[in-house]
């Protein structure tokens, strides 16, 4: 029965594929149209800062409406119920950090990368190198999650069950994505994000309105039906469906929540988006727009998630190729047949493509601008060679993403993303907040907080049950874990704040008051900001 539905759901790979290819062709055409050769670094990294707040707000939500939010969260809600819902609450609230604390100040101080802001009033080379290291590690983790999502989706969509077949298609996805970045730069990538975010929002809104209508405009009725169709029964709607109720699980849940809310505004590819608008006011408008689309999206995804359980059933979802991640596509097939499945899958694919392209761009900007131009060439690289290095880095990142996607194929993507968020929140957020708002903060403090957060986060992840020693870990059959929590945020985020504080206090080199004045005035007023 289960496999029948799965087989029927993937019964028309032709339609799925053609909808997908039409989308790719349209976006490629747009990328080609909007791109005027990306001749300067500002064009390539920041689209010449020429996007409006509204455009960038939609692109910003597009950057965040990744495979993790769409496939991962709808799947998590469908299978685990309430605990999956917690993800969406965390990811909505998280935008307040970007709005109140980070966004506008970042736009005013930086130019292309996170390293610009972190190194503004510090010693350039060590801080830029540290910032680039953090960016590359965080981006890599985040990318793994997206590629894993691609694998799951392909499994469902094309009914490709063999690992080698899926690997082949992940490679294809990776290649198209690298192409976007190489040709389109920030402008092309942003346009792809805008189109995709618009389509995704329309898609989930349509699905949720349809569901609500089907259940007589009663949210309660959907929940009731979902509870009946889940092995968890009534507990689907209650806390504890995913994370259990022993003390460690509860602590893990808190740790996860903290990473979710603090992680988003520290992701390099999200931060980089603030540079594509001309000034701080537009940066603020983008976050406001982004918050609205997030609001609509996560409300809809709540209904889509429970609706998937209500109509398709948890068992069918878990047993489908692609597992949990296939909840939304299966629901689409149930309510709209092969055509809607094709559209939803194409949108999901596009999501992965666009987000991975954004990530690749962030990573290559960080390497080319921070490491190559400022650390290796000490600021004496000419823009053309910088862009060439950026494109080369994009190739390497694309290659790594393909390998990583093949290895992590099958993991829950929302969970994988939470690890990247924990790293981002530990390595970037304390450093950015300190450098913007604390006068005494100095180079030593910066290095301590970046490496303290990044290092502790990495070590705790490696020795956590996420990697080894439990039935759901990445490496099965070996057990070298000693850290009890799957998410390191609860320890590594405060530790990074502490490291930054101690490094600053204990350092013998005080901060540079002149540069501090420049940075503070600039971050609050935008005086001196080039656009």
């Amino acid at each position, binding site marked *: 029965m289960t496999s029948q539905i799965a087989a029927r759901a993937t019964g028309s790979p032709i339609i799925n594929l053609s909808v997908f290819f039409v989308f790719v062709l349209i976006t490629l055409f747009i990328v080609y149209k909007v791109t005027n050769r990306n001749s300067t*670094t500002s064009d390539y990294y920041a689209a010449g800062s020429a996007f409006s707040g509204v455009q960038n707000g939609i692109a910003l939500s597009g950057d965040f409406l990744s495979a993790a939010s769409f496939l991962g969260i709808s799947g998590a809600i469908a299978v685990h119920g*309430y*605990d999956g*819902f*917690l993800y969406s*609450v*965390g990811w*909505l*609230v998280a935008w*307040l*950090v970007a*709005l*109140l*604390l980070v966004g506008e100040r970042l736009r005013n101080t930086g130019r*292309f990368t996170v390293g*610009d802001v972190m190194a*503004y009033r510090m010693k350039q080379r060590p801080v830029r190198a540290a910032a680039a290291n953090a960016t590359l590690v965080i981006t890599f983790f985040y990318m793994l999650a997206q590629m894993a999502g691609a694998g799951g989706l392909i499994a469902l969509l094309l009914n490709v069950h063999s690992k080698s077949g899926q690997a082949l298609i992940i490679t294809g996805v990776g290649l198209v994505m690298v192409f976007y970045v190489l040709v389109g730069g920030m402008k092309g990538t942003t346009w792809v994000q805008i189109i995709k975010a618009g389509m995704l929002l329309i898609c989930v809104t349509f699905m949720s309105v349809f569901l609500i209508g089907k259940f007589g405009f*009663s*949210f*309660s009725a959907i*929940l*009731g039906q979902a*509870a009946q169709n889940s092995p968890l029964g009534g507990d689907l*709607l*209650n*806390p*504890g469906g995913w*994370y259990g*109720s022993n003390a460690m699980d*509860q602590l893990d*849940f*808190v740790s996860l*929540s*903290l990473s979710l*809310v603090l992680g988003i505004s520290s992701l390099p590819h999200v931060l980089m988006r603030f540079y594509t608008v001309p000034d701080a006011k537009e940066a*603020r408008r983008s*976050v*406001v727009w982004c*918050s*609205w689309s997030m*609001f609509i999206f996560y409300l809809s995804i709540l209904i889509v998630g429970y609706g998937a359980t209500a109509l398709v059933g948890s068992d069918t979802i878990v047993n489908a190729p692609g597992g949990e991640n296939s909840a939304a596509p299966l629901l689409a097939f149930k309510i709209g047949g092969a055509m809607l499945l094709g559209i939803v899958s194409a949108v999901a694919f596009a999501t992965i493509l666009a987000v991975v392209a954004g990530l690749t761009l962030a990573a290559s900007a960080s390497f080319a*601008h921070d490491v190559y*131009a*400022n650390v290796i060439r000490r*600021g004496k*690289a000419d*823009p053309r060679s910088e862009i060439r290095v950026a494109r080369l880095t994009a190739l390497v990142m694309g290659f790594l993403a393909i390998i990583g996607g093949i290895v992590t194929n099958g993991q829950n993507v929302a969970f994988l993303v939470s690890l990247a968020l924990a790293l981002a929140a530990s390595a970037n957020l304390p450093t950015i907040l300190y450098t913007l708002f604390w006068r005494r903060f100095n180079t030593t403090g910066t290095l301590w907080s970046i490496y303290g957060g990044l290092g502790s986060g990495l070590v705790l992840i490696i020795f956590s049950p996420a990697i080894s020693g439990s039935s759901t870990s990445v490496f099965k059959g070996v057990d070298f874990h000693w850290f009890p929590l799957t998410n390191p945020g609860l320890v590594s985020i405060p530790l990074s704040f502490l490291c930054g504080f101690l490094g600053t206090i204990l350092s013998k080199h005080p901060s540079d*008051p*002149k540069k501090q*004045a*420049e940075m*503070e*005035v*600039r971050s*609050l*007023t935008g*005086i*001196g900001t*080039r*656009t």
Partner: protein
Amino acid sequence: MNKSVRPPAAMPSERATGLGFADRGDDIGEPDFQAIQQSPEFKVLRKRLLWFVFPMSAFFLCWYMTFVLFSAYDHEFMSRKLFGAVNIGTGFGLLQFVTTITIVLVYRRYAHKKLDPQVDRIHELAGVGKK
């Protein structure tokens, strides 16, 4: 200290074309940032900003963590039904949606009324003008 010092009307800050931050060093044509930082107008701006964003951030973080801690540690309370199949936990979560969007709108209004005009004033005083 030197509160009376007004930021001098400096040239608009057009840096030499080039490579980004690594070539900072020559301050020719730069506004006097330290004087601006010390000016009463800037101090007002900083105070307005910090007195809004920090308490607000503290508030939404605490409010969110309350939701999380209840979800983690008081399953019984969060599982009580409000109406139909909707329980307190789901209601609480949706309430987070409402507060988030409210804070977004309140901040937008505050920034528009209290921060932006002050920024413009400082731009004028520094002789940089609006872009």
